[in-house]
């Protein structure tokens, strides 16, 4: 396991990977199919996506394990295979990344709302713990808990990952801009509340993913930095908000636009930048090229 924190301390902006969901669909993943199952049934396709981001110049790639919590997998009747699927996700990305690049184990929300009492905190903790350990066993360098909206679930995830693996833990939330021009998750959490809570739970890298295009992320980074100037900050931006034309979905942010806006995000204090929904290896290559030119 290499230290991502040590790499960040070297001072250079780092580039993460882009979207997996859209690329999996382009490879043939059908609506209603479990993406994590593809780690076993379509290993080649998953590997190709991982490799495409490595080849595009990413310093780190994530794993095809976003929906790999036992609770999420239960919908497909696959929670018994959680360890197997997460370990495979990590192993595939590790093979693609080689020994040079970092692998971050992706952990997404369970889909359950803790405050409604649908599931117990213990069950959620145990699920994240199992998932994080399996990702570690598969070879990840750090755990990336993403697309969080609720403080309670995020803190349970961070603690579970930290306590079960001892790895560096990243945690990112999804924010929207409110009518008043503030940033809040759908559960009403502000960037400042997030920072305090997840750092307390053990996250050493914080940030934001999804919900916003590249340019909109500038405001969120600014707000995070207004309450925390030191903790390393990761951004995974969407390629803009999706547009629909005659039933075809497209994402408006171009790689060129990303290359142009990139310096502004870095200037606001982001340390690691990558993509979420709608992004492609081309977006990542555009960022990697900017860093190389500097």
């Amino acid at each position: 396991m290499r230290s991502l924190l040590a790499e960040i301390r070297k001072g250079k902006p780092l580039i993460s990977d882009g979207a997996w969901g859209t690329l999996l669909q382009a490879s043939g993943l059908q609506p209603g199919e479990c993406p994590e199952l593809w780690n076993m049934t379509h290993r080649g396709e998953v590997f190709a996506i991982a490799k495409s981001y490595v080849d595009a110049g990413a310093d780190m790639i994530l794993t095809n394990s976003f929906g790999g919590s036992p609770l999420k997998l239960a919908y497909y009747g696959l929670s018994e295979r959680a360890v197997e699927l997460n370990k495979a996700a990590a192993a595939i990305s590790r093979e693609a990344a080689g020994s040079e690049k970092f692998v971050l184990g992706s952990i997404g929300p369970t889909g359950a709302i803790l405050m409604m009492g649908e599931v117990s905190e213990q069950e959620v903790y145990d699920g994240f713990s199992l998932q994080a350990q399996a990702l570690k066993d598969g070879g990840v360098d750090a755990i990336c808990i993403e697309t969080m909206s609720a403080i309670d679930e995020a803190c349970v995830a961070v603690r579970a990952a930290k306590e079960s693996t001892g790895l560096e833990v990243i945690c990112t939330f999804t924010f929207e801009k409110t009518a008043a021009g503030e940033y809040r998750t759908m559960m009403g959490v502000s960037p400042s509340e997030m920072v305090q809570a997840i750092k307390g739970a053990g996250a050493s890298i914080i940030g934001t993913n999804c919900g916003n295009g590249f340019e909109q992320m500038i405001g969120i980074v600014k707000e995070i930095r207004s309450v925390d100037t030191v903790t390393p900050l990761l951004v995974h931006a969407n390629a803009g908000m999706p547009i629909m034309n005659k039933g075809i979905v497209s994402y408006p942010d171009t790689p060129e636009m990303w290359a142009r806006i990139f310096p502004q995000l870095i200037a606001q204090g982001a340390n690691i930048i990558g993509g979420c929904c709608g992004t492609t290896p081309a977006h990542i290559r555009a960022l990697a090229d900017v860093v190389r030119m500097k």
Partner: protein
Amino acid sequence: MDEWTEKISICIERGKVNKLAPYPPDLRNQEGTDELTQQAIAAGIGPDIILKACNDGMQRIGARFSRNEVFVPELLMAAKAMNAVMVHLKPFFQAGTVKKKGVFLLGTVAGDLHDIGKNLVGMVVAGNGWEVVDIGVDVKPEKFIEKIKEHPGCIIGLSALLTTTMASMAKTVQEIKAQLPSSVIIVGGAPLSAATARDMGADGYSPDPQGAVTFLNTYAV
């Protein structure tokens, strides 16, 4: 004015379910919608009056949610308070003493497992006096059509959270309209907009539950 209806309305808005409930902190140890509804019914207050009080409360919290003054947790608690009322009103609905405004059939489209948005809209719409038929998540177009046929005249609601299921939603709208041309469909979900809803051929779009209520009420029986 009786001593219960306004209190019920406020408890709905504030999410106060019953006396034991710790939420909201400033209404600790006070009675909630559970106790107040039972008392109102015992005192002979009509179920339609109680329902109106609930509508008013849900309307207010729904409007505050639309203005981003409150968020999902507050709406969930209001819905919980609403459910406590509905438990006591159920016999009246079954007896036909109170009528619903119509049927709203909703589900999350094929490929998408997310239900929080759908559930919130369902709760707020039910709180407004509609019969809500929730057919779940990852629903294929064929199943939507089958269920719509079981509820002729229903308004249809489609939900999706993932950007990757927008195409699935467009396909669902297309197939429903092809088989049932007179169907009325409203769509919602984080990646959508009024423009994308229009492009799909949907009849309506709302970024929040209250907007769905406004849309539905133009079709109320």
